[in-house]
């Protein structure tokens, strides 16, 4: 009996060892739990609830009213300290409006802390109008994400948002739907589009830019971080 138990223990150690070896040699990283952060762009227009409806699906780390330093000079302690960060508030192409001013997302890579992904972040989500333009809006849809210096992609896997308007009557439902799907390990950008289809208006269209090998990432299973200075980008967009 003891011998059998010992054999089983050895067997389970072997399985764990082989599993670790597989993960170490593959390009897949796995995590049991991550860090989630949410940032509300206004104090009086319900954006806190839009953020909270995502965060409530996790035991989140950060839930703040949005300020510019969280995305720029101190992003290593805020957005880039998280594994997934969500912003809800007003926006425009590569631009978000926080409670203390606007952030030009094409310049955050020039901040003290560089862009996002050099520290920790894999996914950043914008529940805002127009922040992630697609080839329909601008033929050069990639440069402002990956330009050096300035681009916010410094190791980031995916940035999700809308290429169109995002309406306030649906935004709190979209983030709620999305949060549950991310938590259940669905593909990240794929379930962003599912959430928009499931909760959004017929004129709300999502857009997602990503490092191509990270197309297929889930929150808990994802590829190794991209280099900070790549120019390799993919966009998926609804129209």
């Amino acid at each position, binding site marked *: 009996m003891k011998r059998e138990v010992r054999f089983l223990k050895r067997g389970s150690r072997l399985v764990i060892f082989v599993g670790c070896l597989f993960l*170490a040699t593959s390009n897949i990283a796995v995590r049991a739990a991550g860090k989630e952060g949410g940032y509300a762009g206004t104090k009086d227009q319900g954006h806190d609830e839009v953020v909270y409806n995502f965060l409530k699906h996790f035991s989140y780390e950060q839930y703040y*009213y949005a300020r510019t*330093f969280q995305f720029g000079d101190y992003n290593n302690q805020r957005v880039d300290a998280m594994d997934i960060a969500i912003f809800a508030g007003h926006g425009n192409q590569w631009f978000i409006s926080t409670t203390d001013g606007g952030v030009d997302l094409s310049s955050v890579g020039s901040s003290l802390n560089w862009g996002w992904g050099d520290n920790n972040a894999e996914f950043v989500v914008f529940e805002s109008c127009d922040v992630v333009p697609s080839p329909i809006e601008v033929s050069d849809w990639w440069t402002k994400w990956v330009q050096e210096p300035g681009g916010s992609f410094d190791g980031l896997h995916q940035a999700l948002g809308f290429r169109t308007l995002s309406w306030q009557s649906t935004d709190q439902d979209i983030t709620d739907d999305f949060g549950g799907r991310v938590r259940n390990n669905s593909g990240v950008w*794929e379930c962003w589009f599912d959430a928009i289809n499931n909760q959004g208006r017929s004129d709300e269209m999502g857009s997602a830019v990503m490092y191509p090998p990270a197309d297929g990432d889930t929150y808990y299973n994802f590829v*190794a971080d991209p280099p900070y200075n790549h120019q390799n980008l993919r966009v998926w967009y609804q129209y």
Partner: protein
Amino acid sequence: MFSILISRRVWVPAVLTVASLLCLMVYAQRPEKPVLIHYLASAKPVHLDRERIQTFVAKPGPPLSEEEATRLAERLSSYTKATLVRQKDPGEKLDSRLLFQNQKDPSATFDINLRTGEFLFNGGLAQYKKEEDTGRLPSSEEAARLASVHLEKLTMLPPQNELVLAHVGGVNMGLHRPDGSTSLYRKLVVVRYDRTLAGLPVLGDSRVVLRLAEGGSLAGLIRRWSPVEGRKVQPEELLADDVIEKSIKERLLAEGRTATSIVVKFTDLVLYDHGNGVIEPAIHVVADMHFEVPVMNGRSVGEIRRLDVPYDTFLPVLKNYKAKYPFMRNPEATKRVQSDQPVPLKERETPASETTAGEKSPD
């Protein structure tokens, strides 16, 4: 003379400083500029036709059993050749829902609400990620025709008199490669139906959304279309027109407190479908709010960006409404959110090296 010069060096800056401080104090204490609300001609004053308004309640029925839901998942999988397996231990506990997934393709999902029968089915997107167009994608007209064919075959076609073709669009993929070359690929066509009841548009949850792929084959389906029964609303159940008008104005001012101006485009009577098994009459308010936001980083520091922010909301017209309206906020969300201050970087928080393959991301 020397003493006068010294005293000038002292009193000139002192006077300027005091004057600046006074200006700042006056500026800070100025009364807030009232937000101007403009109503376009399309935003007609509320005047309810009190004799003709209806409200709807979901027809009572037993919830789906797990076996019925599983059979539905199998039927859709078989129809679309998707592979889905019941997820018995999802990351998040599901309330009256079943979830089916595919371990090899994390985009594949069947998620069904047992109480309402509403579901989201995504057959999986892994096969569409190659650098190529999806073959033989249907045209818009053909897609709309094929969508109703699929729904009929699956016996999921809602009553024709409730169906409105809302949108035919799709999903595409673009690439920018390291060598600077770019490509665009057509991937899927999407057909969306919205709902109409008693001559009014139903806004909110009701919808049928189909994703079509090669040759018009079905790749995804969302169906949220609870059968309902209607009844005429008694005039005394409705709020007075002026009360509704007041609630619209109050809501706009509450949400657009920091806007420079608000332009109201529509204040239409619609049916609102948002929870609690009802589809009830409501006013859909659509406006543009204008904000001026200073850029705080990068090359454009100090530049003022004018944001024309679209705004829409729903407001009840029933005195005893049952749907969940956007203005009914979750107090927990506001209770938990925190104000934030920048904290100086500590050494350990300076940019870390990239995560290498197989390495666990810092948690």
